């Protein structure tokens, strides 16, 4: 075979794609919540992390990987819904920093409680697929059954969210209540319920991301597993524009690939520094994001 698939560039792109899909999903879940409730959810990494710990607690009762994943998703639905009902609902219409501070507090509490119950040592989860890269003529290509599982699941989730918002009645209601809550309410949309649903949805996207990240043989599950990924997810969302789900996904994937190139050609430490520099430059050039149209603000 031609050495194309094992060349340095292609290896980097394929390797970066895996992380990119993860960043894209985090960015997407941030954008979903930001658009519907105007809250930048700083616990968007911690809530799914907690749900993942809860779901995988079933392992000690001899359940397999997939039942545990289902349990994680159910836990995520509950945590997302309860958070919106009990915590976030009190913050609508408050100054901008209030929800930020509360969600940061929630992040600390969740990470501390998770570490208190399950300890902060990495916990290795069973992996449904092998993480060993496929070989081509004696050289590894940057794909393994596990990374294919990651990428495929990620793309599936993104497509599902897109279909939900674009082509279903529920999606239309979700969009309507985000854009014009008062009008939607007058037209009979149960806005309150939809906001809860939006948080549940976004948490589930986060749970799937966390499960993918932490069932990777090389990372495992820790209370801080999502901290760094959250930072990259936010950078992607801000570059793509907090208003644009598609922009967030594209920016996330590109950021993942860019990171892989930096890791390969510079070093591991430089990754987040370059990402931060990218964010600064992109905000300087296009403050409202690369993929959004500029809108005027009315007083």
């Amino acid at each position, binding site marked *: 075979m031609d050495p194309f698939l094992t060349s340095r560039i292609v290896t980097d792109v394929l390797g970066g794609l895996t992380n990119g899909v993860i960043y894209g999903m985090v960015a997407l879940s941030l954008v979903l919540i930001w658009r519907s409730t105007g809250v930048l959810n*700083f616990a968007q990494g911690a809530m799914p992390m907690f749900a993942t710990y809860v779901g995988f607690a079933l392992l000690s009762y001899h359940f397999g990987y997939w039942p545990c994943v289902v349990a994680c998703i159910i836990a995520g639905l509950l945590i997302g819904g309860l958070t919106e009902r009990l915590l976030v609902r009190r913050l609508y219409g408050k100054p*901008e*920093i209030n929800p930020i*501070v509360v969600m940061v507090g929630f992040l*600390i509490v969740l990470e501390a409680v998770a570490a208190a119950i399950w300890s902060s040592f990495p916990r290795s989860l069973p992996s449904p697929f092998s993480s060993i890269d496929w070989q081509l003529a004696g050289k590894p290509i940057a794909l393994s059954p596990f990374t294919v599982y990651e990428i495929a699941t990620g793309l599936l989730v993104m497509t599902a969210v897109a279909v939900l918002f674009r082509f279903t009645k529920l999606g239309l209601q979700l969009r309507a209540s985000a854009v014009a809550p008062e009008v939607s309410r007058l037209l009979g949309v149960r806005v309150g319920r939809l906001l809860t649903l939006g948080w549940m949805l976004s948490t589930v996207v986060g749970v799937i991301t966390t499960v993918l990240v932490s069932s990777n043989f090389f990372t495992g599950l820790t209370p801080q597993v999502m901290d760094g990924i959250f930072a990259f997810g*936010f950078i992607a969302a801000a570059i793509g524009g907090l208003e644009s789900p598609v922009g967030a996904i594209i920016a996330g994937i590109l950021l993942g690939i860019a990171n892989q190139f930096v890791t390969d050609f510079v070093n591991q430490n430089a990754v987040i520094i370059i990402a*931060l520099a990218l964010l600064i430059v992109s905000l300087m050039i296009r403050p409202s994001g690369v993929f959004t149209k500029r809108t005027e603000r009315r007083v």
Partner: protein
Amino acid sequence: MRLDRTRRRAPIAMVVAVVATVLSLVSAATTREGVALSIAFDLAIACVTTLSLPDLKSSHPVVSRAALTLLALDVAIFITFFLNSSTNFNLATGAAMSIVLLGLSFLTGASGQISLGNGAFMGVGAFAMAIWSNHHATTPIFLTLLIAVACGALVGLLLGLPATRLRGPYLAGMTLAFAVAFTFILSSFNSWTGGDSGLQLPTEATAPRWLDGFFHAGTSPLTTTTLYITDFSIIVAGVAFFFMANLFASRTGRAMRLIRDNDVAAELVGISLPRTRVAAFIVSSAYAALGGALLTLINNSVSPQTYSFALSVTILSLIVIGGIGTISGAVIGGIIYAFSTNAISWITTQTGLNPQGNFASQLNGIIFGGLLILTMLFAPLGIAGALRHLWSRIRSRT
């Protein structure tokens, strides 16, 4: 008429205060506590006299603030002479932290924005301090502190320029990314920052010779150094608070508060939003760097593990619990920080938790995170706001 008299009397009282201090210092000959007592007494009388002048607050606000700061410093320093070394050490770190908290409080109180990266800005100051002292050991401490502050301000400008122009949570997110990135930045410059083990200061900060006898406790050199560094930190904090109190009340400070409350109105009266917001962020970063540099001085070393994302979160918790947007909140937060480690280990022993267990090691996060949420939901202005509310109720009753 009354106002005129105040105008004349206020500066005179200040001069009296300063003369009294100098005289006491010069006559420092008897026992340490005796001298401390006499100075503290003189100074307190001078300050109280100044503060009791009628209409001082409105006619000479700067003088009034100076007298108040001096009085607070006087009392605080006097107390440190009677505390043991470990309590003094805690107080010193609390003083350093209160400077950082004041910067964050100002940012939020003045521009309505929030930074999640002040721990990293502290780290900028802390490492700038250590790196500079290791290369130029002869630079006076004050100059090194100023260099650290300048470094913090510069990094603040770099990050603040893009983020503060935007509405929305961009500054919070970007500073979070900076806080997460900071440890990686440190290890990228291993040869400068000393890698995982961090840096030591070349010499310990000791009292200048003309003050040495005053701080000499006669017990051990350690006690003397700790006492000196504690009082030094408290004085630096006092100066920082004095400047901030004036800034809060200045034209710039008022412009900033207007931006927080109504940015459109602010723009209409001719305030430049981006410029003012960036300025507020730079001030907050510079204050964080000052606090960090002071912490390096107190610990005599700096370690990269200190300046993780967790520190930024701790800073946020402290100022929210103390009272964000207020000056007194920063003092309260600093005091909480000074004694939080002791308090938490006290709780651990009282409740019979295993000190090495998972739960005890996470108690800090659970308590601070929980208090952060509860404060924001039920008393958004923290302890300072609650005290102010209580005070106004007492006053309205009489």
